[in-house]
C-alpha cells in the first residue's frame, strides 16, 4: 500500500458542501428496503422461544409436539448449533447467547426456535415446546453481583488482573487499571477534595428497526443472509464459524439499517435463522419483536462509579481517582476497562488512577452503545469537576480550561496527545451566547465535556467508472446516517467531477474484500481514506489511457479538475481529455476503468465535545424539561456538515433520554418490567428543544482531509451536563441516572427536610 494518509491542508470543491444523499428518494418514498422488507420464494417464518427465568438450568427440552404441528418445518435447540468454536471463548459466548446450551442466563435468553409456514403456526408451535427448568438464584444489580456471597453466574470465572489468582470463582471477571503519577501524593497536595459515588441504570440503543434477517442455506453448503447489521463482513465470519460454513460461500447482504448505535455490531438471531433454514431446507425470515429487542439484544452496562478529585487553591487538579464497576450481562466483557480509559481523558493530570471491574449479572449480554462506557464515566467525573469548581469558587468553564488536556499532555489512559480539541471546544463554549442568556426561576444551566477515541480499521472499496463517465462507488462500511453522501463527495473531490456523477452503494460480502464493523465512528474516516486511495488508483489508469490516446509518456500526463492534461509546451495543441472522454473510449484503450483499494485505516483522531444545557425543574413534581441545548464538537473536518450536525444532535438527544428517563427496570423475579417503547421512554419530539451545534475543525494529522470520527462523542457529555444543570436549578446533586421525576422529587424532599 503506497497510500499516504497524512493531512495535506488542501482546498476543497466538493467536500464541505451539503448535497442531498444518494439514498434519499428511496427513503422518503418507502422504497428503501430494510431488514424486514425482503422476502424469498418459499420463505418460512422463524420465531424464538425465550426463557422466562433470569437464571435456570435447562434440564430438558421436548420439541416433539411442536414438530408434529401441521405447518411446522423445523424446530431447533442448542443441539442443532453444535460447538464449533474450537476453544475460542468469545465465540463460544456468542454461540451460547444465540441459543442457551446448559443454562438460561437472563430473562429472554433463547432456548429453542421454530420455522413454520406462517406467524400464527410458529407462535402456536412455541407454546407446544416443553422446557423443564431448574430455577437458580439470580442477580441483576451490578453492586450486588460483585459481592462475594452473590449467586454465581459462571463458576469457571476467576477474576483476572489481580496480583494473585483468586481461589474462588466470582462474578467479577476482570480488574483493569490505568493512570500515572502518585495519587496519594496528589491528594496530599490538594486544598480541596471531593469524593462521591454514582450509579447509572442500563439503557438500550433504542433503534426503531428491530433486528431482522432472511436466511437461506442450500444443501451444497452455500448460503445467503439478508440482514440489518453494522458489519455484514463480521456477521459473515461469525455465522460461518458458528454454523460450520465456508465464509466465501455465505453471502451476506447488508440491508438498509434502521439504526444501530452499536447494537447491531453483534449477531443475535442470525445464527438461529441460518440453523432453522438449514434444517427446514427453505429460506427463513426472522424478525424480532420490540419485546425481544429489549429483552434479548445488547443494551449498555449498568454502572456504579466512585470518583475522587483534589485541587489546590489556584484551581489546579492535583490528583484524580475513579473506581468503576460495569455490568457485562452474563458473559465477560471489557466495558469497565473503556470507562476507566475515558474517565479523565479530558484533563491534564499529574496523578491519576482508574480501576475498572467487569461484573457478570443476569441481564442480556452488554453490547456497544455509542461511545460505549464513556457517558457513565463522564457523568461521574464531570459532576465532581463541577462540584469542585463550586467549592473553589471558580467558574465551571474556567476551571475546566485551566485543567484541559492539550497537545503533548499525557492522557489519563497512557499515550501523549497530538493536536486535540478539548481546549478549543471549551473556549468556544465560554464565548457562546448561550452561556450569557438569562434564566428564570427553577431554571439552571449546566455544561460538561466528553471524549471518545474514534477508530479506523480494515477497509476496502471499489470505484468503477462507467462508459458514460459516471462513477459507482462500492463501499463495505454500512451507511448508518448519510455516509454514502459523504463518500460520494470524497470520490467527486478526488476525481474532480460533480457529486451528481457519483453513486455510492454498500456492497455485499461477495462483491468486496473484508471490512471491519462500522463502529467507533469509523465509517466516513475509514472509507474516505479507502475511497481517496481507490480514486488515486483509478486516476493512474485514466492518465495511462490518456497517454495511450495521445501516444505520449504517462509521466507527462497529469490529472486536474476531472481532466487529463498533457503537461509541457510540446503538447500545446492537445486539448485536455475529460473523465467522460476517457471513459467513452475505454473499450478501445484497455477495457473498463476502475480503482480498488484495500487498507487498514489506522490513526483515527480522538475527539472532544463540550455541551451546554438549560433545564427547568418543577419543584413540586420533580419533572425536568430541557429548554435549550448546545453542542460544540471537534470534527477534524466535516465532509458533509449537515450530517455531522445530525450526528451531534442525535447523540445529544440519546444522552438527554438516558439522563432523564430511560432505564431497564427489573422486578424481584429478575424479569424485565418495561420491554417496550411505552415504558422504556426514549425522548419524543415534544420533549426536546432545537439542538444547536457548532462544528470545530482541528485537523487529524493522520487523515488526508483531517477527518476525525463524529458519531459517538456527542452522547458523552449530556448526562453530566443535565445533572449539573439540575444542580444549578434546584440545588440538589443528582448521583443516580436517570434523574427521573421520582428520584428528583425524593432528592428535593430530602433537601427540604434538611
Amino acid at each position: 500500500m503506497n497510500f499516504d494518509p497524512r493531512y495535506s491542508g488542501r482546498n476543497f470543491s466538493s467536500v464541505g458542501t451539503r448535497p442531498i444523499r444518494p439514498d434519499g428518494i428511496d427513503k422518503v418514498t418507502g422504497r428503501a428496503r430494510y431488514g424486514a422488507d425482503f422476502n424469498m420464494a418459499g420463505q418460512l417464518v422463524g420465531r424464538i422461544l425465550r426463557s422466562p427465568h433470569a437464571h435456570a438450568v435447562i434440564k430438558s427440552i421436548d420439541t416433539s409436539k411442536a414438530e408434529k404441528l401441521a405447518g411446522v418445518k423445523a424446530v431447533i435447540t442448542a443441539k442443532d448449533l453444535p460447538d464449533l468454536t474450537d476453544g475460542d471463548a468469545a465465540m463460544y459466548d456468542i454461540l451460547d447467547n444465540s441459543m442457551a446450551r446448559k443454562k438460561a442466563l437472563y430473562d429472554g435468553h433463547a432456548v429453542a426456535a421454530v420455522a413454520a409456514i406462517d406467524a400464527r403456526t410458529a407462535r402456536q408451535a412455541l407454546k407446544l415446546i416443553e422446557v423443564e427448568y431448574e430455577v437458580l438464584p439470580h442477580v441483576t444489580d451490578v453492586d450486588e453481583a460483585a459481592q462475594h456471597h452473590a449467586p454465581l453466574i459462571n463458576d469457571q470465572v476467576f477474576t483476572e488482573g489481580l496480583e494473585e489468582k483468586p481461589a474462588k470463582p466470582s462474578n467479577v471477571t476482570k480488574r483493569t487499571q490505568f493512570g500515572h503519577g502518585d495519587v496519594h501524593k496528589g491528594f496530599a497536595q490538594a486544598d480541596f477534595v471531593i469524593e462521591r459515588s454514582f450509579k447509572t441504570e442500563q439503557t438500550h440503543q433504542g433503534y426503531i428497526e428491530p433486528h431482522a434477517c432472511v436466511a437461506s442455506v442450500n444443501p451444497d453448503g452455500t448460503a445467503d443472509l439478508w440482514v440489518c447489521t453494522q458489519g455484514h463482513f463480521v456477521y459473515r465470519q461469525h455465522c460461518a464459524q458458528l454454523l460450520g460454513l465456508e465464509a466465501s460461500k455465505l453471502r451476506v447482504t447488508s440491508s438498509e439499517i434502521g439504526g444501530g448505535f452499536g447494537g447491531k455490531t453483534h449477531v443475535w438471531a442470525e445464527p438461529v435463522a441460518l440453523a432453522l433454514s438449514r434444517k427446514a431446507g427453505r429460506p427463513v425470515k426472522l424478525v424480532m419483536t420490540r419485546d425481544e429487542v429489549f429483552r434479548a439484544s445488547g443494551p449498555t452496562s449498568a454502572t456504579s462509579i466512585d470518583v475522587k478529585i483534589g485541587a489546590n487553591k489556584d484551581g489546579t487538579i492535583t490528583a484524580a481517582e475513579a473506581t468503576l464497576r460495569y455490568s457485562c450481562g452474563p458473559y465477560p466483557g471489557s466495558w469497565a476497562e473503556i470507562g476507566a480509559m475515558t474517565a479523565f481523558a479530558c484533563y491534564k493530570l499529574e496523578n491519576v488512577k482508574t480501576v475498572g471491574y467487569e461484573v457478570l449479572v443476569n441481564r442480556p449480554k452488554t453490547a456497544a452503545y455509542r461511545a460505549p462506557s464513556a457517558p457513565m464515566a463522564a457523568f461521574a467525573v464531570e459532576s465532581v469537576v463541577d462540584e469542585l469548581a463550586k467549592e473553589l469558587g471558580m467558574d465551571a468553564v474556567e476551571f475546566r480550561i485551566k485543567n484541559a488536556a492539550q497537545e503533548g499532555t499525557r492522557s489519563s489512559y497512557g499515550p501523549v496527545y497530538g493536536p486535540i480539541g478539548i481546549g478549543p471546544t471549551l473556549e468556544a463554549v465560554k464565548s457562546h451566547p448561550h452561556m450569557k442568556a438569562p434564566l428564570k426561576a427553577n431554571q439552571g444551566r449546566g455544561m460538561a465535556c466528553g471524549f471518545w477515541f474514534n477508530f479506523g480499521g480494515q477497509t476496502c472499496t471499489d470505484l468503477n467508472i462507467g462508459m458514460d463517465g459516471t462513477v459507482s462507488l462500492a463501499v463495505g462500511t454500512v451507511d448508518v446516517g448519510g455516509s454514502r453522501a459523504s463518500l460520494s463527495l470524497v470520490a467527486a473531490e478526488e476525481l474532480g467531477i460533480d457529486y451528481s456523477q457519483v453513486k455510492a452503494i454498500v456492497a455485499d460480502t461477495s462483491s468486496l474484500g473484508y471490512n471491519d464493523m462500522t463502529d467507533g465512528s469509523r465509517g466516513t474516516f475509514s472509507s474516505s481514506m479507502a475511497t481517496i486511495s481507490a480514486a488515486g488508483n483509478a486516476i493512474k489508469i485514466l492518465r495511462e489511457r490518456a497517454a495511450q490516446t495521445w501516444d505520449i509518456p504517462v509521466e507527462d500526463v497529469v490529472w486536474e479538475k476531472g481532466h487529463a492534461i498533457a503537461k509541457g509546451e510540446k503538447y500545446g495543441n492537445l486539448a485536455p481529455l475529460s473523465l467522460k472522454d476517457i471513459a467513452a473510449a475505454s473499450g478501445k484503450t484497455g477495457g473498463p476503468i476502475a480503482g480498488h483499494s484495500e487498507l487498514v485505516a489506522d490513526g483515527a483522531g480522538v475527539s472532544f465535545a463540550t455541551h451546554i444545557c438549560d433545564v427547568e425543574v418543577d419543584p413540586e413534581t420533580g419533572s425536568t424539561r430541557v429548554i435549550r441545548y448546545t453542542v460544540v464538537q471537534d470534527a477534524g473536518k466535516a465532509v458533509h456538515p449537515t450530517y455531522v450536525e445530525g450526528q451531534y444532535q442525535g447523540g445529544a438527544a440519546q444522552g438527554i433520554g438516558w439522563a432523564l428517563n430511560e432505564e431497564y427496570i427489573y422486578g424481584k423475579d429478575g424479569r424485565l418490567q418495561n420491554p417496550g417503547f411505552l415504558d422504556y421512554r426514549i425522548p419524543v419530539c415534544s420533549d426536546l428543544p432545537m439542538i444547536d451545534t457548532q462544528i470545530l475543525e482541528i485537523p487529524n494529522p493522520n487523515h488526508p482531509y483531517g477527518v476525525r470520527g463524529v458519531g459517538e462523542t456527542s452522547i458523552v457529555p449530556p448526562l453530566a451536563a443535565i445533572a449539573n444543570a439540575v444542580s444549578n436549578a434546584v440545588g440538589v446533586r443528582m448521583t443516580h441516572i436517570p434523574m427521573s421525576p421520582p428520584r428528583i422529587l425524593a432528592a428535593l424532599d430530602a433537601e427540604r427536610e434538611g
Partner: protein
Amino acid sequence: MRYIRPLSIEDAVGELAKAVGPAAILAGGSDLLVRMKGGFIEPELIVDIKAIGGLADITETADGFRIGAAVPCAVLGENKALKQAWPGVVEAANLIGSKQVQGRCTITGNLCNASPAADSVPALVAAGAKAVVAGPSGKRTIAVEAVPTGPGRTSLAKGEIIEAILLDKRPDHAGDAYLRFIPRTEMDIAVVSAGVNLTLDDKGAIKTARVALGAAAPTVLLVEEAGQVLIGSKLDEATLQRLAKICSGACRPIDDKRGTIEFRRKVAGVLAQRAATTAYKRAGGK
C-alpha cells in the same frame, strides 16, 4: 377466530351472548390489538361495533351530550360544543396516546379496559358521567365509576356492551379540568392523575365539587371528602392545602415501574390543586 361487523346493537349483543369461547368488542382497538399482539388474549370472536347506527356519533340532547361508544377521542376534540361544556373531559380524552391512537381510541374503550391509569376515566367520574349499557335483558344506565371493578375487570355481564357515555348539560358557572403526571411530555401512561369538576354560585363560591384520582388505587378513586372541602370556598390557599392533603391521604397507590408510592401520594395532591385551580377559572371564578 371470527370477525363480524353487526349493524345493530341487538345483533352485537346477541352474538356476544351466544359466543362460546372468549369474545372481544372492537371499537378503536388500541387496547385490544395490543393485548392480542402480546398473546394476552386470543378471542374466538371479534365484534366490530363501528357500523352500528348511532355509535359513531356525538349528539347534543336536551339533557346534555350522548357520546357513542365508537367515537374516536380525536372527534371529541373537534366538537366545539362538547369542548366548551366539558373541557376537562375532552382534554383527558385527547391525552390518550398519540395523534395516531386518538384517531382510533374511544372513551368507552378506555373505561372498559379498566386500567387504574386510564386518562379519561377520572375526568368522566368527576363529571358525573353515566354509561348506557345494552345487554341481553335490555338497557340500563349506570355511573361510570360502577364500571371498573379492578385492574382489567368490569361489572359488565356476558353479552353486555356500553353503547354510549352520557354527560349532563352544563349550568352556568361550571368548569372541569384534568391533569396527569407523565415523565415525558406525551405518549406515557399516567403515573398519577386528577380530575376536578366544579360549579359556582353567583358570588363565585364553589357550590358543587367532584374530585377523582387516577393511578392512585386499583380503580379510579372518587374522593368525596375532597369535593366536600372545596364546597363553599373560593379556592383560597388554605383550601388548596387541605385539598392536597386529603387527596394525598386518599391514595392507595403501589410502587411500580412508573412511580413510587411516595411520589404518587405527593403528586396526586399537587395535581388536584392545579386541576382545581384550572376548573375554578373555567367556571368563571377569580
